[in-house]
């Protein structure tokens, strides 16, 4: 099958902005008197409007990477640029959705979303319209006055997505956004996210531990390994959106990625090396 650039997929808005460029990112935490190398020479270029999924073992630095892109952490080596501009601190151009919804429990759904607009110099009416539009976008019409504890996990996560999109960021970062949801809700929200992405056209970088989800949504799937966190493999998924989950291509790619994720020699762990001794 030929590669179909996402920008040529029918129905997908063509975007000129939202190119994310990561060059030689190095990140370490100083833990007591020990240095913990979390990311090493991490480089990745994401095209405007592209959907990139990142999978990798837990602790390989995926969340750390997104926090760097979002600007929540500024201590690293290398460069992170959005449309050629080096990022500094947080910005409304870069949205972030966490695994937990992080809605404020004392605010109604619409107040939670409106909080994201407190730094925007637009009229009250314009703000109200943005909030209403984004509540509708994630299918939560009728729940404007609900408090987070009155929403199901899936609804709360949708609200979190609405909040992160209300500023129409050039790039949306998603850190295991469906990781805490049950399987059915997850499948449903994957479809929703795809619809939103097709309608909105912003660049998306999503971390997930679900390889199937990564392949179903991503134009590209980046596979990471730990110690230190780095890219070991990139898989192009040359299938038009929306995709058929039963596609044999997806299944083949899934098997490949799973094999890579589960069959990596771990030089740091002598026991694993011993058990896996025959294969090497």
């Amino acid at each position, binding site marked *: 099958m030929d590669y179909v650039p996402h920008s040529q997929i029918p129905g997908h808005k063509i975007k000129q902005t939202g190119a994310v460029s990561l060059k030689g990112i190095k990140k370490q935490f100083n833990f007591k008197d020990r240095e913990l190398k979390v990311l090493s020479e991490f480089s990745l270029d994401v095209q405007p409007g592209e959907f990139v999924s990142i999978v990798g073992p837990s602790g390989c630095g995926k969340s750390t990477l997104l926090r760097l892109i979002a600007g929540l952490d500024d201590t690293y080596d290398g460069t992170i640029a959005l449309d050629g501009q080096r990022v500094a601190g947080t*910005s409304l151009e870069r949205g972030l959705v*966490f695994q937990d919804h992080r809605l404020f429990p004392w*605010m109604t759904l619409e107040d939670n979303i409106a*909080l994201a607009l407190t*730094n925007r110099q637009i009229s009250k009416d314009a703000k109200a319209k943005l909030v209403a539009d984004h509540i509708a976008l994630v299918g939560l019409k009728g729940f404007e006055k609900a408090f987070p*504890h009155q929403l199901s996990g899936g609804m709360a996560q949708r609200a979190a997505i609405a*909040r992160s999109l209300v*500023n129409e960021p050039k790039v949306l970062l998603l850190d295991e956004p469906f990781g805490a949801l049950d399987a059915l809700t997850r499948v449903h929200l994957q479809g929703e996210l795809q619809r939103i992405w097709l309608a909105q056209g912003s660049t998306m970088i999503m971390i997930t531990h679900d390889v199937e989800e990564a392949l179903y949504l991503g134009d590209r799937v980046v596979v990471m390994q730990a110690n230190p966190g780095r890219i070991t493999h990139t898989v192009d998924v040359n299938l038009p959106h929306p995709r058929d989950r039963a596609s044999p291509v997806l299944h083949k790619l899934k098997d490949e990625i799973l094999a890579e994720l589960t069959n990596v020699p771990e030089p740091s762990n002598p026991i694993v090396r011993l058990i896996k001794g025959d294969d090497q």
Partner: protein
Amino acid sequence: MKPDLKLILSVGSPLLLLIVWQAVTAFKLFPPEVLVSPTAVIAAFGEVITTGELQRHLSESLTRLAGGFTTGASLGLLFGLALALSKTVERVFGPTFQALRQVPVLAFIPMLILLLGIDEVFKIVIIAKAAFFPVALAAYDSVKGVPKSYFEVSSLYRAPWWVLISKILIPATIPNILAGVRLSLTRSWLVLVAAELIVADSGLGQMMEMGRQMFRLDIVMVGVIVAGVIGFALDRLFQLLQAHALRWKTA
């Protein structure tokens, strides 16, 4: 069915206490100089109300409470916030604060009498001291306890500092601060009555002390009951205020 049972029990238990009390005095199990009968107390109630004595003492006490409590709680709030928000304040005052709050308020009475005499200022100071610590501690703990994730969300959306304070920090800390204020309110009342028993020329505690000196145990009992009812009412009123402030929790 269940709420009815609860109601019967909550009305019934004080009623039962009253009946036992009446029975004990009717059978003269204790000499009347030690335990007076409920009917005598009711009579004394009528007496102190018609003479206006009760109203006068009570309004003295409540004025004192208002002054001392408001001063102490406001200072406690400001101090607790400063302690939580400033590293310098924490380093300078932290250890003293932690040590002083372990000293019972009443232990300060002798020292304060020497310093301030037994005038109005002394009473205000002693109540303020009682009100100060629970509020300061609650403010400190609750600000320290605001999750990092709240600051991160605020930073992601570049919320201005006044939004961070008014829409995030205050709502996040208000439940614990209100709990601290409530504790300090009831504490202040207890300390006030106790302080008036020891040194005062007016107030509910003083009314009881005078009653004791004149062997009017019925008046002492009136004081005990009024002190209890006022404490209970203050706590309940504050609970209502708390429930109103936190109505999003139950909405």
